[in-house]
């Protein structure tokens, strides 16, 4: 399952969707809205996406993971719109026969997602300012 959604992420349903009698291991990763970045305080995040391309890139990532590890099932859901502190922005579940594979595939998927999938977040800082997060860009 690959999904972009404005709704709260049901990670329980996502996890159930990857369980299998062929799997000995399931790894679920959740990204959640953290309050502190250094000494700056976040009050909310807004996520935007180029949805058509983001879904295509997520499908590519799934194919890459399946080529590298004996993945049984994988599911990735990314939330868009306005998120409050503690909300889940991304959930990613993967099942494999053995545990090392599940950890490696899960970490690969989230690491790659953060580099190649066209989704952006805008910080809403506690001082009332907002700021798009664009790694490597200093403006």
């Amino acid at each position, binding site marked *: 399952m690959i999904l972009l959604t404005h709704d709260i992420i049901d990670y329980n349903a996502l996890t159930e969707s990857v369980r299998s009698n062929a799997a000995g291991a399931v790894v679920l990763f959740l990204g959640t809205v953290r309050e502190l970045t250094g000494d700056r305080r976040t009050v909310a995040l807004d996520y935007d996406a*180029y949805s058509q391309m983001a879904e295509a890139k997520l499908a590519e990532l799934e194919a890459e993971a399946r080529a590298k590890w004996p993945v049984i099932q994988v599911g990735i859901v990314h939330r868009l719109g306005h998120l409050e502190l503690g909300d889940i922005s991304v959930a990613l579940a993967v099942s494999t026969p053995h545990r090392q594979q599940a950890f490696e595939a899960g970490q690969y998927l*989230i690491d790659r997602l953060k580099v190649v999938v066209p989704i952006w977040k805008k910080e809403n800082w506690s001082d009332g300012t907002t700021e798009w997060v664009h790694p490597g860009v200093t403006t």
Partner: protein
Amino acid sequence: MRIAVQLFAKARDLAGASRVELNLPDAARVADVRVALRQRFPQMEPLISSLLVSVGTEYANDQTPLRVGADVACFPPVSGG
């Protein structure tokens, strides 16, 4: 040739538009999009060199040729997750 370009995130905010039409030379390549955006939106200058450009749903490089009707998008580095 005229090319419609989608803009996202800070690029969209700086341009004040989520979609712009650009006049490009015939047989234009992705590098020409960068040049046209710089001219039309001087306020986008600090972003121009780091803008990512996609054609269809694939990342393109400055040499990638463009054709009329292509789905072109420009955006700064991603930060999902």
